[in-house]
């Protein structure tokens, strides 16, 4: 399916915002630096927000923190307000109640092979998820489960309901996971690298499916990925994370065509392109520092070719153009630097 960056009908329409996360910060026990350093995200109705970044930048931890799935003995959330429609949760004080999990906000995981309970049938698990959040009868739930399997494009849904996870392929299991996650009509779906473990053709099918369901139901989707190809395929908006901070966010076309943060620029130029002659790909020098060694201020400055004294102060995430925010003192970069990129 062709990517289409959907224009915002109501750029400032608050009622259109399904979920907002404000200033999430958390650290792992025994560490002195925040793993997630005050990040904010919003998701509008029908929007697919892709959170991209390399391994260890805090994408998955953010998702787990949102869902209240981080074990408290390992992680301490020091701030963060999660708003889902009218509900406000202070994540530093409360974890998401089980009544909301799976009902308002659902999550699918990276590994479809291990995300289903091997001891029970597919039908059993979907029905359990439905009955957890609705008062309906088991027969209704069964009908709903069947409907959900059809909706995610599984052939022979009646038969599949009575099968065990090991009898299904990886792609099918991921479809089942999606069916289960969407069975209660959540307002937000968090997909944590849902296609990483699948081969490319299945990958495209699953992405299409998520895109379609998002358009159809108006649910917001937060897609976590390290694959810029996936972003181009599915995203409306993208948030680029580095070292536990959001360094750039905006409409996908904006960010891809006119990246402003030096890290995003590095990522884009590191992507092989079919229409350009081959050769050495550009790289971002260095590696991500460990959490304990994160520099003060801009966390990218130790690897940034443009870094100066000024970067020891953390740059705010601010507008360069409408709907395109960058956390860099030198954005917009063309205007401030005469260095040829």
């Amino acid at each position, binding site marked *: *399916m062709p990517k289409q960056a959907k224009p915002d009908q109501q750029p400032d329409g608050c009622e259109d915002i399904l979920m907002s996360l404000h200033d999430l910060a958390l650290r792992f026990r025994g560490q002195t630096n925040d793993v997630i350093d005050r990040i904010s995200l919003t998701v509008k109705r029908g929007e697919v927000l892709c959170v991209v970044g390399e391994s260890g930048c805090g994408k998955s931890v953010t998702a787990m923190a949102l*869902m209240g*799935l981080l074990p408290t*003995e390992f992680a301490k959330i020091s701030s963060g307000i999660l708003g889902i429609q009218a509900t406000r949760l202070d994540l530093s004080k409360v974890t998401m109640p*089980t*009544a*909301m*999990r*799976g*009902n308002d906000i*659902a*999550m*699918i*995981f*990276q*590994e479809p092979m*291990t*995300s*289903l*309970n*091997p*001891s*029970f049938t597919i039908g059993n698990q979907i029905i*359990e*998820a439905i009955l*957890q*959040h609705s008062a309906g009868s088991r027969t209704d739930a069964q009908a709903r489960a069947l409907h959900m399997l059809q*909706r*995610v*494009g*599984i*052939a*022979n849904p009646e038969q599949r309901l009575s*099968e*065990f996870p*090991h*009898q*299904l*392929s990886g*792609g*099918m299991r991921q*479809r089942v*996971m999606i069916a*289960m*996650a969407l069975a209660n009509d959540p307002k937000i779906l968090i997909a944590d690298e849902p296609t990483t473990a699948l081969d490319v053709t299945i990958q495209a*099918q699953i992405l*299409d*499916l998520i895109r*379609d*369901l998002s358009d*159809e139901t108006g649910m917001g989707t937060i897609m976590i990925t390290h694959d810029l190809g996936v972003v181009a395929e599915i995203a409306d908006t993208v948030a680029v994370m580095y070292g536990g901070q959001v360094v750039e966010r905006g409409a996908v076309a904006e960010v891809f065509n006119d990246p402003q943060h030096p890290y995003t620029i590095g990522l884009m130029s590191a992507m092989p392109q079919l229409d350009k002659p081959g050769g050495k790909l550009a790289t971002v020098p260095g590696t991500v520092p460990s959490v304990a060694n994160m520099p003060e201020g801009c966390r990218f400055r130790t690897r940034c070719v443009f870094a100066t004294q000024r970067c020891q102060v953390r740059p705010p995430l601010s507008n360069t153009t409408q709907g395109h925010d960058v956390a860099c003192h030198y954005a917009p970069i063309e205007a401030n630097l005469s260095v040829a990129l």
Partner: protein
Amino acid sequence: MTNTALASEPVLTAKTENRVWKKFRSHKSAMVGGVLVAFFILIAIAAPILPIPDPAATDWGAVRKAPSLAHWMGTDEIGRDVLSRMIWGAQASLLAGVVSVSIAIAIGVPLGLIAGFFGGWSDAVISRCTEALLAAPFLILAIALAAFLGPSLTNAMIAIGISATPIFIRLTRGEVINVKSEDYVDSARAIGLPTPRILSRYILPNVLPPILVQATLTIATAIIAEAALSFLGLGQQPPDPSWGSMLNTAKNFLNQAPWMALWPGISIFLVVLGFNLLGDGLRDALDPREH
């Protein structure tokens, strides 16, 4: 929706259904174990309907008679039929094995679940108690408990059950810690299932296979323990038959009537061997690494 349905693809149906059973059947020693265990269970269940004399009926005209057509396994020091006592004794032995292991599972598995799943102080308390119990040798602990509770088959079963409990606590705890980090547990929490449901539907069923194997092996240990307790007079009380107490009497007549010791000895050996082979076979058949 633009999405095309996946073509129905062949799935492993009939084959996977019987995977465990097939593997078990191809395991020769496991089958031998299974047959041995099945044999003893059968005669223990059938004891009341088998055409055998009353195990407590004495016959002063046939004291310590060697095996013959009238008494296939001979008679004991007060003329009781050894075959009949063997069969009724099988009931006591198997009952002791099964009941004591059931007690151990009923106490050990929930405690192991709690310790493994919740961790923290509950784990600390339960694990320290487990270690304290494990520090005492199994049989010594069982003897001490049985002596404390008073000699009877029921008390022997309780004593053996309690002595076997720490094995199950430790095993369950370890398995729970493994399973709790599985993705499907996270996904159950993401669906919004409450903790008790996660424990009963996502954790417990997936830690059962190793517990089942351990239970089979522990039944063998428990049967030996029951025989030992009865041998010492702390288990089944006379005149009710038990292999252990039969051995105890038989030791006084090893020269005159060796069959009195032979049959219970062989039976204990065979039934324990049977349960051990069965347990090993189950372990191989249920091992997920070999699937």
